[in-house]
């Protein structure tokens, strides 16, 4: 499938901003299952400096600074992506979750070693006994890793309410767990927290989800802005994405921007500014199939 994604971010300030520094992680990276054919970020007013690099996770980052006084900042990222249907993980992959854990710890395969860092706590995700106890009913002794993962995702989907009013980007994971509600980012953090609390590697994925509802099916949640899900590492299979918000394994309707330990590593857009007073934020994401446009 080919997509054009248009992601527009608009900040409006009550007072003039004299100078701002920003980082945008809004350009999809290429992965084994997607190719970013082109991607462009435009900024209004025109930035004095704009430069692109790769971060430690291999994500694309644009740093830019606007040094002319302004009261509105508009950042538009336009990308064209080809997304293949991933080779579905074999649902009957037999490796038990404890073996997965053992295997990740002991392996001398560089790819597996690279996954080890995703077993550790991160700025937004602390491991805890509460998370272990929530995860436990999915991770019964000896249960195959994949089966347990899918079950955990389904339980999060079933037992947690999607509620954008309840949480913000600063909401602590323990509150999400206590109140049984949140948004895609919280559910991704929750899933990751459960896996890491059991000693398993998991990472946070930031991206987009196409919302065109197939005939007769309900509209999927979480696509008005960017979306987030998680990915678990399974030796022999590699990273397996899973979306607890919609209780499914991501297919060719999902476009990945990038990944990190948690939201703080792949915040789509952040900035520090001088002046500005109060600000309002308006975000619009538009994801279209290119075939249907042309």
């Amino acid at each position, binding site marked *: 499938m080919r997509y054009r994604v248009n992601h527009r971010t608009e900040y409006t300030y009550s007072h003039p901003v004299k100078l701002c520094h920003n980082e945008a992680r809004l350009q999809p990276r290429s992965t084994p299952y997607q190719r970013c054919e082109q991607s462009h970020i435009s900024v209004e007013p025109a930035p004095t400096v704009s430069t692109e690099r790769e*971060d430690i996770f291999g994500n694309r980052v644009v740093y830019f600074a606007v040094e002319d006084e302004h009261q509105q900042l508009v950042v538009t990222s336009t990308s064209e992506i080809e997304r293949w249907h991933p080779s579905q993980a074999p649902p009957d992959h037999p490796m038990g979750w404890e073996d997965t854990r053992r295997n990740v710890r002991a392996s001398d395969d560089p790819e597996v070693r690279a996954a080890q860092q995703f077993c550790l*706590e991160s700025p937004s995700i602390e491991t805890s006994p509460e998370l272990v106890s929530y995860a436990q009913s999915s991770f019964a002794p000896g249960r195959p890793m994949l089966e347990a993962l899918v079950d955990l995702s389904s339980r999060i989907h079933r037992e947690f309410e999607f509620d954008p009013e309840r949480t913000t980007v600063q909401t602590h994971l323990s509150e999400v767990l206590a109140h049984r509600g949140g948004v895609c980012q919280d559910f991704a953090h929750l899933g990751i927290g459960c896996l890491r609390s059991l000693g398993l590697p998991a990472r946070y994925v930031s991206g987009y989800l196409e919302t065109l509802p197939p005939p007769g099916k309900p509209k999927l949640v979480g696509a008005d*802005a960017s979306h987030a899900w998680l990915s678990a590492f399974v030796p022999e299979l590699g990273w397996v994405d899973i979306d607890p918000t919609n209780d499914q394994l991501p297919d060719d309707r999902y476009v990945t921007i990038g990944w990190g330990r948690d*939201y703080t590593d792949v915040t789509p857009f952040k900035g520090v500014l001088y002046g500005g007073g109060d600000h309002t934020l308006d*975000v619009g994401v538009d994801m279209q199939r290119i075939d249907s446009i042309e």
Partner: protein
Amino acid sequence: MTSGSATSALPSFLDGYAPEATVFDELYAADGAVRPEWEYLIRSLGTLGPVEFDRRCAEGRRLLHDSGVTYNAFGEGGRSELPWMLDPMPVLISSSSWRTIEVGLVQRAELLEAVLEDLYGAQRLIRSGVLPASLIYGHSGFLRPCFGMPVAGNRHLPTYSADIARTADGTFIALGDRAQAPSGTGYALQNRVVMAHVLPSIFRDSQVHRLRFYFRRLRTALLELAPDADDIPNMVLLTPGPGSETYFEHTYLANYLGCTLVQGSDLTVADQRVWLNTLDGLRRVDVILRRVDGAFCDPLELRNDSVLGTPGLLQAARAGNVAIVNPIGCSAIENPGLMAFLPVLAQQLLGQDLKMPSVRTWWCGHDEARRYVTENLQDLVIKPTNPHSSDMTVFGGQLDAEGRDRIVAKIEAAPHLFVGQEYVRLSHAPVVVGSRLEPRPMVLRSFVAADSGGYTVMPGGLCRVAPTPDSKLVSTRSGGASKDIWVLASEPERELEAITASEAPLPLRHAEIAVGRRVAENLFWVGRYSERIEKTTRALREVARLTLEGDVTDQRDPRLQCLLSVACELTATYPPFNSGQSGPIENAGVTGILADQMLIGSVRNDIGALLGASDAVRDQFSYDTWRTILSIGSQAGSLGPTLGDLAGLEDLLTLLAAFGGLCADSMTRGARRRFLETGRCLERALALNATLRRLAADPNPANRPWHEILGLADAQTAYQVRYRSTPSAESVLDLLIDDDSNPRSLVFQLIRLDSLLQGLSPRGNQPDDVAPQKILRQALAHLRKTAQPDATEPRFFDAALESNLSYVSERLAAISTQLATNYFQPIEGPTVLTPQS
């Protein structure tokens, strides 16, 4: 073993010095003889005699106190400034011992630099499994945004520091590696200055390696890292500010190395370059000597709750436009877990054996090591691998069963975050206790710096000793004293070479160090506070005189009431003595204006504010000026609780006068001094104005204590010289308002302000009518107009006077506001955007 047996004629202060058999004693060899490197010092101190040595010790303490050498400690009560403790007995290190240390430290620095290069670059060590991922990635010093970042001069570790100790068998081992912002060099230097002063001839004849050479090389090395070789590099020392533990050292080093002391808010990043906000606009910064922890340096890419950093700083470094020393991210090597891997790393990266061993370390991330640690807790020290962990260092031997279970549970929950280390029996060095020497455990902090030729070790460093013989922790925080380290040169020729080399010409700074906006603001307030304290103190002195020396016993005495209300006006504090109840004045609340630390406007409170503002720009004051500021601070402690201590008030006035004189004599003419003087002049005009307005407000002219008012303005003598008569309203007001030859008059202040404001560089696009000088001239014109003999309104009618003064006062306040807008640090710092989810 008794100390007197081996060497004859040992000084009496060695009586009873009992070396412990199980540790290495720095002073005595195992056979009971004084070690050869100590012989000269001990003999010379014997010749000096105990009385003279005591006197020298006292002199050392006085020097440290007067120089304001302090260490900030943090406890439950907030920050407290502790005096720096220097034990007057240096620790002596022989030339051959030092060579071993030197070689070991240089190799360690090279090794750790190679580790940093790999961790932030190719990461071969992690991919090949030499270093476990959780050891590195679990450490808070590893900063992911710094991955792949170039470093100036390709130096990942331009400066390095290690805590080292001597074990029972006499070998030196490393206890800890420091890279974040190794503190101590400034204290080491200060210690040396004091020691060379206290024991001049002994120091001279002992052939001690000098420290100066190291600092010169350090400065040259730092300047060499500047990205743009064409220009004279501009170097700054980035400090977290007066709240930092080692703020004294930051100011001291900034002065010694000749760089500007700045805080993160003084800097701006624009066009991927770092700029210092100065009064004359932005000035490029080339080298940052960093004393702010890496994670706090840039709210854009690192901790977004930090107010100590500068947004965009990382990007400027990434673009290669600024050299940051040490590079942000280097504290990844401040990881005790890494110590367990250093022997292997030395082989892998350098192809060598590790020359200076580390304290034996078991990193709990390895199953076998974890088992060893949990099974041998009683013999080990348990440390978190993260420098700012909420977990404390624990001595396993001190734990009860419950404590052991707790620590084991913590280790099991996150084994990669803990190490077990052997409990090192530190060597003992002689420390002066009373009039004797006693052995105390010691740790040396050594310093290493790189230049284009490689690493150099400072020949000396900072020795710290434990407060008691059996202390397990040796640190400044836990109350231990410091010592100077005397590294003895074997051949005097080497020293000569060093001196010659150290006198090689350094790049000279031609341009004046730029004045930051924060500096201008603080100096302005130093001027205002010092003047305000003086005025309030004078008012209180007049009150005290009236009651102590005069005949006033009744609180309702109109002269007293008038003075008290002037004091209220000056301080904007209105305690209940205005109610007119009779009784002793000391009990009526006026003493609060003097000594109540919590009362805003009180002398004591203003002194606190003066110290705060001065401290923030400590590097701007000469040594003597700073000593005077410190004396003003100690004087504050002895104020009150009654006004009875007239001498105390007068001492304070003398100190304030000394401070004013020193500023006038020792500050170079330029923007800095201009702001201090402007503050002082503005405050003086405002105070005089407030006093006169208070007088104008009293309906009964007979109640005005003219004599005391003149005293308040320090104009009694001027009055006597000019009028030779009993003060009257007309003559006093003439002297205090219109007389432009009286340096205490209102007109004089306004004229002086006019010339001070004249020298300020104008701000770019501001409308003319808000220029401070313009506002000032309105006030001056008004005052002069009303002083004309043919002025239509009768001037000294109280209502007219009140309205004239009120206009001037309002104009003066407007000047202060406008100065803040034009020249001072914007109140609003950078803010973080709501991130997008």
